[in-house]
């Protein structure tokens, strides 16, 4: 992408910001979303999201007061939609960090208009994901603090550090913390912009407190850039580690279908895949609601489609590898579990996964699909669904028929399973809509840095044009 700036032919390498926007245009445009009245679409979306979020709390309340039995979990399928949703939401979160940190380190300038929203998405997805490890336990009132190595009167001992679930606790909480910090640090200059544009004392106070006294001085910028770079460096291994560790929940067990060494890279690729799909879904919506066509350009969207194509292919390759290894290992249980996925009682889940994850992204080979908003929206939804099925297939189909045929079973979700899952959408959307409403959804300062990206930026660090 570095040669993007050098190439004079605009048609082939269009500028990152279009429509001849100026610095003040960028500030006005982005700030107006926060400052102006919420559009009707926002209210409609909230009207959907908030009741769903309330449904989540209702379902969780029912769950905690009654027991895990309100879900469809059983023996042998000890984990069902709970962990499926957990892994799915964690996966969704990956794109945020990837876009923010890794693309930042690789100097991918096109990330600037989408990184803020993607980071927010990460945070909210991690919040949704974190619900499950806690609430899927039989006694969440204990799990809430027994899973952390805190001194307490009841355990009188350390947790079991051999358990991948312990690793999960650390991985997810670290990821959540670093993502939040990264996101917040990135927000500071923009919060200051909003503070300075505030017309009411309340806004001024709140944004003032949040912007931590940002003045936009050169010294501040110097420290800020360094801090941002360091956080990006810190986040980057997390993108790989979190989902690797989540995959250990499965890979370190001895269950056929779980017990595979391919899981860490396969899970990370899948996470990026699903994360980008979710970013595309949300960005196309945000672009439509707020008219951000000049900031979130077709170039951004097309790049994301390419990432989906690439990671989709990795995921597809992993599916194939799993089957090959199952055959090559000559392990009877391993062979059976994979054939059972494709041809057993859950065949429909397996082939849904293949259709959504392997076949759907193939359309992105064609520029026509990569540049069509409806096409990419629909395909991204398919990928979201497919990636959910992937986790369901891994979890439920491996569990439902393991070693002893006497103990084979089947998993069917209950309305509480479904309600909880829909509820997390509600929570996610509510948080995301609130974010759109009250915080700059696009990094103003960073976009300004790439406003004249047709002119080469030799040192590569985003040029900063002050906050006003």
């Amino acid at each position, binding site marked *: 992408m570095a040669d993007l700036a050098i190439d004079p032919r605009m048609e082939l390498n269009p500028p990152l910001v279009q429509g001849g926007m100026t610095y003040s245009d960028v500030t006005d445009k982005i700030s107006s979303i926060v400052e102006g009245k919420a559009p009707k679409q926002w209210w409609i979306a909230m009207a959907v999201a908030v009741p769903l979020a309330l449904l989540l709390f209702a379902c969780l309340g029912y769950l905690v007061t009654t027991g895990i039995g309100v879900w469809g979990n059983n023996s042998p399928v000890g984990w069902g939609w709970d962990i499926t949703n957990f892994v799915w939401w964690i996966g969704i979160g990956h794109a945020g960090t990837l876009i923010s940190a890794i693309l930042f380190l690789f100097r991918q300038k096109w990330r600037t208009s989408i990184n803020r929203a993607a980071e927010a998405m990460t945070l909210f997805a991690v919040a949704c994901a974190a619900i499950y490890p806690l609430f899927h336990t039989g*006694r969440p009132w204990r799990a809430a603090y027994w*899973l952390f190595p805190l001194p307490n009167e009841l355990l009188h001992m350390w947790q079991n550090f051999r*358990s991948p679930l312990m690793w999960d606790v650390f991985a997810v909480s670290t990821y959540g913390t670093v993502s939040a910090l990264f996101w917040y640090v990135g927000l500071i200059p923009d919060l200051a912009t909003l503070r300075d544009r505030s017309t009411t004392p309340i806004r001024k106070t709140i944004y003032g407190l949040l912007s931590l006294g940002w003045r936009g001085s050169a010294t501040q910028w110097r420290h800020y850039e360094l801090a941002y770079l360091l956080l990006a460096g810190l986040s980057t291994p997390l993108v790989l580690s979190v989902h690797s560790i989540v995959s250990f929940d499965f890979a370190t067990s001895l269950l056929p279908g779980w017990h595979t060494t391919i899981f860490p890279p396969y899970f990370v690729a899948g996470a990026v895949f699903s994360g980008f799909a979710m970013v595309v879904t949300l960005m196309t919506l945000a672009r439509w609601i707020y008219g951000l066509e000049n900031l979130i350009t077709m170039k951004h969207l097309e790049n994301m489609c390419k990432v989906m194509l690439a990671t989709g292919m990795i995921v597809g390759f992993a599916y194939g590898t799993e089957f090959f290894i199952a055959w090559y290992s000559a392990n009877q249980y391993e062979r059976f579990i994979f054939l059972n996925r494709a041809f057993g009682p859950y065949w429909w889940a397996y082939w849904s996964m293949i259709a959504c994850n392997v076949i759907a992204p193939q359309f992105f080979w064609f520029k026509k699909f990569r540049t069509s908003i409806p096409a990419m929206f629909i395909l991204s939804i398919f990928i979201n669904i497919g990636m959910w099925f992937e986790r369901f297939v891994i979890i439920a189909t491996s569990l439902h028929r393991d070693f*002893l045929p006497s*103990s084979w079973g089947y998993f069917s979700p209950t309305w509480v399973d479904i309600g909880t899952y829909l509820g997390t959408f509600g929570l996610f959307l509510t948080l995301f809509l609130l974010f759109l409403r009250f915080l700059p959804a696009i990094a103003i300062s960073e976009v300004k840095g790439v406003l004249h990206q047709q002119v080469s930026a030799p040192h590569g660090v985003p040029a900063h044009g002050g906050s006003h």
Partner: protein
Amino acid sequence: MNELIQLNLSSLTGRKYWRSLNQLADTPEFRQWVEREFPEGASEMLDSGSRRTLLKLMAAGFGLAGLTACRRPAEKILPLSKGVEGYVHGRPLHYATAVETCGIASGLVIECNDGRPTKVEGNPRHPFSLGATNAFQQAMILDLYDPDRARQVQKQGVKSSWAEFESWWMEQSAKLGDGAGLRILSSRSTSPSLEALKAEIAKKFPQSAWIEYEPVSFDRALEGARLAFGRPLVPHYRLEQADVIVSLDCDFLGLDTLSAQPVKQFAARRKPEDGKELNRLYAIEANFTITGAMADHRLRARSSDAGAIALALARELNVSGAELKVLSQGGDRQQKFVAVAAKDLMAHRGRSLVVAGPRQPAEVHALVALINQALGNTGQTVVYTRPAFAAADTLGAVQKLAEDLAAGRVNTLFVLGGNPLFTLPAGPDWAALFRKATVAALTFDENETWKAAAWQLPEAHPFEAWGDVRALDGTASIQQPQIQPLHGGRTALEIAALIAGRAERRGHGIVRSYWAAQWGAQAEQKWKQALYEGVIAGTQFPLEEAKADAARVLAAAQSALKPAPAGIETVFYPSWHTLDGRFANNAWLHETPDPMTKLVWDNAALLSPATAKRLGVKDGDVLEISSGGRQIRCPALVLPGHADDSISLQLGFGRSACGRVGRGVGHRVEGLRAAANFWFGPAEARKTGATYKLVTTQEHHTLIEPITGLKRHNIVEEFSVEQYRHRAEHGRHEPHPATDLFPEFDYSKGYQWGMAIDLSACIGCNACMVACNAENNIPVVGKEQVSKGREMHWIRLDRYFSGEEEDPQAVVQPMACVQCEKAPCESVCPVAATVHSPEGINEMAYNRCVGTRYCLNNCPYKVRRFNFLNWNKDIPEIRKMVFNPDVTVRMRGVMEKCNYCVQRIEEKRSQAKAEGRRPIRDGEIVTACQQACPADAIVFGNINDPESRVAKLKQQARDYSVLEELNTKPRTTYLARVRNPNPELV
């Protein structure tokens, strides 16, 4: 004052002595003073006559205080092995007793915790339990605390009392005269005391009749003996002596014997290490029973074909010398089967045995007696005694009762035990007939019969009441109460005493006086001995010389036995869940799956895959089955290995008047069971189009995987005798040593607990499952939750079919936590709630568990059970009395599983410590499943002691670990199933 004195003095004549002037004046003050004992101001009781009252109260108080201890001196119960002397609070006491089910008695030992019976074990001294129990006996303890028991004497639903009932009877009895209007309908009893009372009643009311009716009995065997020997005799099998056994429609390991004895005898010959040759079992049956699953060769045949097969066998064995009628040829397979079995029987004359099932008509039993005689088995593998009850034509007597009732000849009808309105043969409108007499029903629960009775009397549980029973061979036992009747119930014995007009109407007195009369001078000593041991020595019946009259038997058989009619037939079987309906309110039994179908909380019409296909039904399709103008509806369940054109129906379901557990559970099939087809008979079946949800704990999965068609090895190992010998000679295959990431525990020191389960001996009778329920406070979850896969059994019986679908073999594998040394559950628990003990037990710390269920997912044996909901919610107070105080009741959200009855290990450990820190002896610790097991298939002990039984078993060539390649190193290993097929039939 002076005037008064003067007056008094003047009124007196003669010399007058006075103490004081006051006395002289005789003032009221003086009089008061005289009456007062204590000077004014001293404390006193204000109540007049207080001292007297006080003394009275004190005397009464002492008397009442003494009363609290009255029961023991009055009705002395004695512990089997541990005295009340030196009683330690919190440690259980064990008392011997006995119970009878369908006229078959077993000796038991009941564990009582602080006066509360909590657990049933077999009495090792009793010849029919030999220390083991069956599932029903294990579950009886739950019935004791059933909150839905009959609790109150009622007169047509209005609260009454025993006193009112007794005064009613006094009046009624006076009106009855010679008793022409009196009928007593009771369940079968072997009680000698009751027999004496019956005689008294017959004397007092010569025209009355006492009818004994059992819906499940072996009356037909007695009839067969009557035909063969001229008198009703009970056959006693000595299975341990038999090298070849042919079972003709007889589930002698399961529901057709109801005691542990035949299982013990049979299993003793299925263990190749014991040096004895393995026996060989040929089973001919319609339903696939657990006896069929143990068979080396099994022939599917309808129950109505058994007669033809018995004749064919007799012909092959040439029992008569004359040519015998051929009823039906049967298929090639049948002919060959019979020929080979006959040859095998001939080759083992005197060491073989043919048994016939209780469903078979008398002629088949007689024929079998004749065959055994011809084979020289009589006196060797089968002996005969007289029955412990008066054998009678029950169905005829019941028919007579119906006629008497219809004709208005019955004025008073006593129902003593059972639930006749539910179980009596279909045909007469029993409910209407019962309304024609005054019915006094003594029933255990508020069942159909109770609801229809004028006098509703609560029956005492066998664990609450005195009584006596006789085992099949005559061995008598005293039934000793473990607790005062919880709801003031009485027994049939006590009601009979009332009817007989005895002064002594309490069970203890009745039983004691009966036996005192038998024993004479030594009564006191013998009584104590009987209570202590649980059996009365020397009460066995003498063996009877039995010589079958061949001509009579063959003539009867040839004339009575008919070729089986074509078309569908129905066969009635007792149920593993309710037996005949008596356990219908027992949740433990409902949730313990049927051994073969794995069905819970229901009964079903079992049929073969071919018949199901012909009728166009699959599992859960409701069938309408009709016979003799009567119809029932019952959902179909396909059972591989079932005979074609035969439908097996289980009795005891669809109870309309029942407690909250059993009401409306299953489908009542008794409506089809007329006297003419009491056990089996032709019927028609039709698909109705309706469906019904049947829930099983296990699908019909085999060890052959679907999709790939590969067999799963390392789960169940089976050998033929030949293969076993080869393996024993060449030693077992040792697995490659596996490398481990985690360091090894040091298992070389101290006790290292382990278990060996013998698949060759295990018959899959469910006793271990129910015993585990009782011992470990395992909750019941109900049909709906079982359908979701949430049953809580710590030990389960995995049943696998192998071979062709129509005619498979089956093998049963008990599966509880195998206590892996490298436990996959342990490493994944984030809070270390499941950890290893230094003695090799994978222990659950319920308090620490947060319920991630990761351990369940990672357990390759899927033996972990999760409390998905609060299964112990809303348990009635009385039901809580059954809980074992040594075991925690688990809350929702935690995982649980087998821990080798760690509470029993600790109990013995502390006992050994108290007895001078001696080591725990081998065999001292017995797990609940092991103790209940009638086949001795489960052995537990210290594997670090090379001399222990379990360590020796683990050295056997057929010892293997399930899923050995996973390197979990289970402490429970299995001994492979060894079959003994006849090479001629393979």
